[in-house]
């Protein structure tokens, strides 16, 4: 069993099967075998949040997760959080507020911010900062990130994400 094994799981809503080695991490499988480059390994120690994906509806650091352990699971990456026609409200909010500079950490922040809003639909600044404590932005766009999360929370509370023009004219 030190050899590769074929695992089957749901990736961004579609069934996939992949042959992986026991020592491969989830982020290695996603980025190297499945060509999904949104989550990326940065610190490799679960501290920075750049490799955040959802496994069975919960955020995990995919750099600390063995790939074979997602056999049978439901995996969602940043590529799977919108329908292809329209961005997720959190993605829209990050763009509109300018909550990034280089963008390397952004997929991880967006994944964590979505989960945060599921847990705390109307978060305080402290709740936002605490939930995102395991996400590092080396450009230090933290004030804008907190603003973007609050904007996304208001959009979610309104039911749908209004177009930017409507928001500005309101």
């Amino acid at each position, binding site marked *: 069993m030190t050899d590769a094994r074929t695992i089957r799981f749901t990736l961004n809503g579609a069934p996939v099967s992949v042959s992986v080695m026991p020592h491969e991490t989830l982020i290695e499988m996603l980025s190297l075998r499945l060509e999904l480059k949104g989550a990326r390994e940065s610190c490799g120690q679960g501290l920075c949040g750049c490799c955040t994906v959802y496994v069975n509806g919960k955020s995990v650091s995919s750099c*600390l997760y063995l790939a074979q352990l997602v056999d049978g699971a439901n995996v969602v990456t940043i590529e799977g959080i919108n329908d292809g026609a329209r961005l997720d409200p959190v993605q829209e909010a990050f763009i509109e507020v300018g909550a990034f500079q280089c963008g390397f950490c952004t997929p991880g922040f967006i994944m964590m911010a979505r989960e945060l809003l599921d847990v705390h639909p109307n978060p305080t600044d402290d709740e936002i900062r605490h939930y995102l404590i395991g996400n590092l932005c080396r450009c230090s766009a933290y004030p804008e990130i907190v603003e973007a999360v609050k904007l996304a929370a208001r959009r979610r509370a309104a039911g749908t994400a209004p177009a930017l023009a409507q928001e500005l004219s309101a």
Partner: protein
Amino acid sequence: MLGFELSEPATLDEAFDLLADGDPGVRPMGGGTALMLMMKAQIFKPERLVSLRNVGGCFDGLRIDADRSHIRIGGMTTFAEIECSPMVLQHLPAVVRTMKTLANIRVRHVASVGGNLAHADPHLDLPPVWMTHAASIRIVSKTGERVIPVEDLFAGYYETTLEGGELIAEVIVPVRPEWTSTYVKVTTRSAHDWPALGIAVSANLQGRRVNDLRLVLSAALDRPTRLVAAENELRGSDLDEAALKRAGEAAVAEVDIHSDSRGSAAYKQHLLRVHLSRAMHSLVGV
């Protein structure tokens, strides 16, 4: 990481068989977050990892005994499950508060309570908290089972008293409504660094009078350690400045703190005096 075999037994008996040969390269795995770090750094090079995530039974979930005297937490219960449990919040609120300071939510979604104990890193936040709560662990093996206090698990730096093939099935925590507890994580570099020291306290108080208490120091020693002499200074006393000063001096005298990257021995001794006193004050709300 180097190659290894990954097994996911569906029953405890299968797990025991896979772990049977006593090879140090064969290890059980809970959530695996700590083992992954050691494997990536090639400090640990396993030949076979035996994931316990499918063994089920008492390894999973949280229960309270019918007489409501004890809470039983399965060894594979994740930190997030404990943190989000209304039962734990009601009966063990200090455990939930400690979770908020521990790693981040992604790690808490995966890390298991049994794996955390078996890892025996002295910097970990939960083991001292279990110790002040007078918790025990139930250990199972192919030949039987035993129950020991959490403090008897630790044998030294990353070392436990677990024998080959023994697994931590559950943590058993007494429900003690007359006790209050807290944990102080003292970091000396960034706020979210590993602790220079961890101070866990539980006390049965009557106003400012200490009927009984438990004090545990972690991170600054090779294992989480009861501060017995400091406890003796406070047990039966009123919590006043003189008693707390005596307890702080007793604590510093009874343990051998070494200098490391998080502070000199003298500095950490000072932190121990100050934060032990503050932790006790926080229990009486002063």
